[in-house]
């Protein structure tokens, strides 16, 4: 956890990442608030706030007396949300900076194509 952003947001992101990566499958049970708290060494109330954020978003749902589960369709919904974020946080600034440097769109595309990627990471 880094100390410059609210921890409950970081917890929510960490759970989202696990769902996106398939480590937490849809309809599987997620760890309890107290388990998150002791794993990340944070206040249980803070961990609960992070989990509840995902419940409010419909990514997780509660089964009374049993625990917290990943909702069906969460992975696809998160992927869409992250794609939108990626566009806003990376692509737009990238294009703006390229324009500042006088690069054409074709030049930018060829630079991206020439950038090595982890094998199989971009299909």
């Amino acid at each position, binding site marked *: 956890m880094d100390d410059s*952003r609210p921890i*409950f947001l970081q917890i929510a992101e960490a759970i989202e990442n696990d769902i996106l990566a398939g480590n937490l499958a849809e309809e599987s049970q997620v760890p309890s608030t107290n388990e998150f708290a002791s794993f990340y060494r944070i206040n249980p109330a803070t961990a609960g706030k992070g989990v509840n954020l995902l419940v409010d978003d419909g990514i997780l749902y509660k089964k009374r007396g049993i625990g917290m589960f990943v909702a069906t369709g969460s992975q696809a919904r998160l992927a869409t949300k992250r794609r939108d974020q990626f566009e806003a946080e990376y692509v737009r600034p990238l294009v703006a900076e390229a324009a500042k440097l006088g690069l054409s769109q074709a030049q930018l595309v060829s630079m991206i194509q020439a950038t090595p990627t982890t094998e199989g990471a971009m299909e």
Partner: protein
Amino acid sequence: MTAVVEVEGLSKRFGKFTAVNDVSFHIEENTIYGLLGRNGAGKTTMMQLLTGQQFANSGDIRVFGESPVENAAVLGNICFIKESQSYPEDFRPRHVFASAPWFFQNWDAEFADRLVADFRLPLNRRIKKLSRGQLSAVGVIVGLASRAPLTFFDEPYLGLDAVARQIFYDRLLEDFAEHPRTVILSTHLIDEVSALLEHVLVIDEGRIIIDENADTLRGSATTISGTKSAVDAFVGRRAVLHREGLGGLTSVTVEKLDAADRTEAAAAGLELGPVSLQQLIVRKTSIPETEFGAQS
């Protein structure tokens, strides 16, 4: 939420020195609080007032709804671990733990035994012969195993090594999750404990200057750096917590930037940086201006 502690207009003077100056705040049930501040800010005096060990000059203190002074019903629910606890002559740690159940009705002897093993505390050595860190471990064990509904830790870990401090944090969180209670932790090691805290009280020169949820504070301030003219133009009339300058470059810490502010700052070519809880508190409790080179 129920308030365990309610303080209104509290003041405490020692001669001409005002240690606590017209302070009002609430402490909620089953929450871990950080009571933070510089040396001599008034933290210990505050905790002594809340535990009936000092008498207030003015103001009102309610702990579990009653005055704590000479009040056995209230004090029986409080555990106060001090930086320098003194014990009877010839006491050994085992005597401390054997007598603890007389004072703390929730005392868990099994939990205390586990903590003794965790901290590798010699039970039969005289207290006087313990190292500073081992002496702190005695206090930490009493504070945790007593499970008092209101527990104060005043700089509990003088001399405790990094491993022992981590054991303290881990056991505190685990036990708090199973047995929720109100914990007030006073410390200078803000970075180490910040993730444990739900709420932060910062006291400076006898006054409460921050009374806020820890996660709300985190990320509430931003450092903006760039050329002096660009920074000044952006900052405008915003309140500046701290300012540093080096030649033509300036770095200022300001509160609460929204997304539009961030876009504007980025468009002006300014760098935005995060401010940790510890940095924020340092900024709020120290002199606001540091100018290297020419003063402007």
